[in-house]
C-alpha cells in the first residue's frame, strides 16, 4: 500500500528554531550564527569584535565545540558571558541544543548573542538555530574556491567575511574570484575583507554588527 506522506524531514528542528527566535525576540536579543572551517578564525574575529564594541553592546556567546573548552576560555577572558556547548563529536549545532544552552544565558542582560558553530562548511548549513543572521567566515589560507565548493553554506549567508587578509601576500587567493562567485551564488550577501590581527577592514564589519 502506497501512502502519501509529504513531511519535511527537519521540521522538528525548524519548529525548535522558531521557538528559540521567539525567546530571543521577547528579550530583544539579536543573534548571529557564525560559521566557518576549523581554524578560519571565528574565535579571533569575535575577540576583535568585542574589543571594539563591548563599550556600547552587551554580548554573549554560545560556543559550539566538538570537544575542549579552549574557545570558551578565550571568550571568557574577554569578559563576555559564554556558554560552552560540547557536541561530543557531533558536526553541527541544532536548535534543541541551542534552546537548552539558552537557559544558561541571562538574556535580559544581553543585546547581541553570537552562536559560534562547530568548524565545518557542510553540516551546519542545514540546521537553523533560531538565529537572526548567518555569517560565514572564510580565511584566505583556505583558498578562493570555497564559495563554489560549499555553495549551500555561502548561499544562505547574510554576510560573508573574508578573514586573515594580512596573509594575502603569502596565499594564492584571489579576492575578485570570491566576489564574482558570490555574485553568482548569493548577490544579496554583505561582504567584508578583514584582518582581526592588524585591524584592516574591521571598521566596516563592526558597523554591520552594530546595525544588525
Amino acid at each position, binding site marked *: 500500500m502506497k501512502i502519501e*506522506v509529504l513531511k519535511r*524531514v527537519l521540521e522538528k528542528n525548524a519548529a525548535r528554531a522558531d521557538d528559540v527566535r521567539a525567546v530571543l525576540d521577547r528579550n530583544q536579543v539579536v543573534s548571529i550564527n557564525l560559521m566557518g572551517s576549523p581554524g578560519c578564525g571565528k574565535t579571533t574575529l569575535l575577540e576583535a569584535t568585542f574589543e571594539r564594541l563591548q563599550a556600547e553592546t552587551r554580548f554573549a556567546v554560545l560556543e559550539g565545540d566538538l570537544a575542549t573548552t579552549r574557545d570558551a576560555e578565550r571568550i571568557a577572558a574577554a569578559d563576555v558571558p559564554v556558554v560552552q556547548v560540547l557536541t561530543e563529536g557531533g558536526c553541527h549545532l541544532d536548535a534543541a541544543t541551542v534552546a537548552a544552552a539558552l537557559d544558561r544565558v541571562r538574556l535580559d542582560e544581553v543585546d547581541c548573542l553570537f552562536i559560534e558553530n562547530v568548524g565545518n562548511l557542510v553540516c551546519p548549513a*542545514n540546521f537553523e538555530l533560531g538565529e537572526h543572521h548567518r555569517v560565514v567566515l572564510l580565511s584566505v589560507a583556505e583558498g578562493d574556491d570555497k564559495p563554489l565548493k560549499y555553495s*549551500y553554506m555561502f548561499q544562505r549567508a547574510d554576510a560573508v567575511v573574508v578573514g586573515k587578509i594580512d596573509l594575502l601576500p603569502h596565499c594564492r587567493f584571489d579576492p575578485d574570484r570570491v566576489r564574482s562567485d558570490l555574485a553568482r551564488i548569493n548577490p544579496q550577501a554583505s561582504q567584508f575583507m578583514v584582518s582581526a590581527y592588524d585591524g584592516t577592514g574591521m571598521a566596516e564589519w563592526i558597523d554591520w554588527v552594530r546595525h544588525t
Partner: protein
Amino acid sequence: MHELTIAQAILDAVLGATAEHGGGRVRAIRLQIGELCQVIDWTLKEAFAILSSGTAAEGAELKIDWVPTVWRCTACERTRPADGEADRCLCGAPPSADRLQGSDELLVTSMDLE
C-alpha cells in the same frame, strides 16, 4: 555526517506516519532531496539501515529523487548542471550572468506499507 541526524529524522517521520495508518511494515520510502544540502547517498542509506534496525522500517529501501543544483543564465534562462564542465552558458553570456538555483528541501514524499 549530518546524514545521521537526517536519517533519524526520516525514521521518526516514517514511524509516525506508520502509526497513524494503524501500523505495519515499511517496505520503501520515497524521499525528495535537494542537492544543495550535500547529503551523501550511501552515507544516508547506511545510517538509516543502522538506525531502523529493530523498528517497523527495518530493511526499508530509500528511493531518492534528487533535485539538481543548476546554473541559471539570466540572459537566456537556460540552465546547466552546477557541477558540469561548462564554465559559461551556451548563449555565450559571461559567468557573471549565472545565478545558482537549487533546492534545500528534504522531504519524505511517500512510503510503501504492508
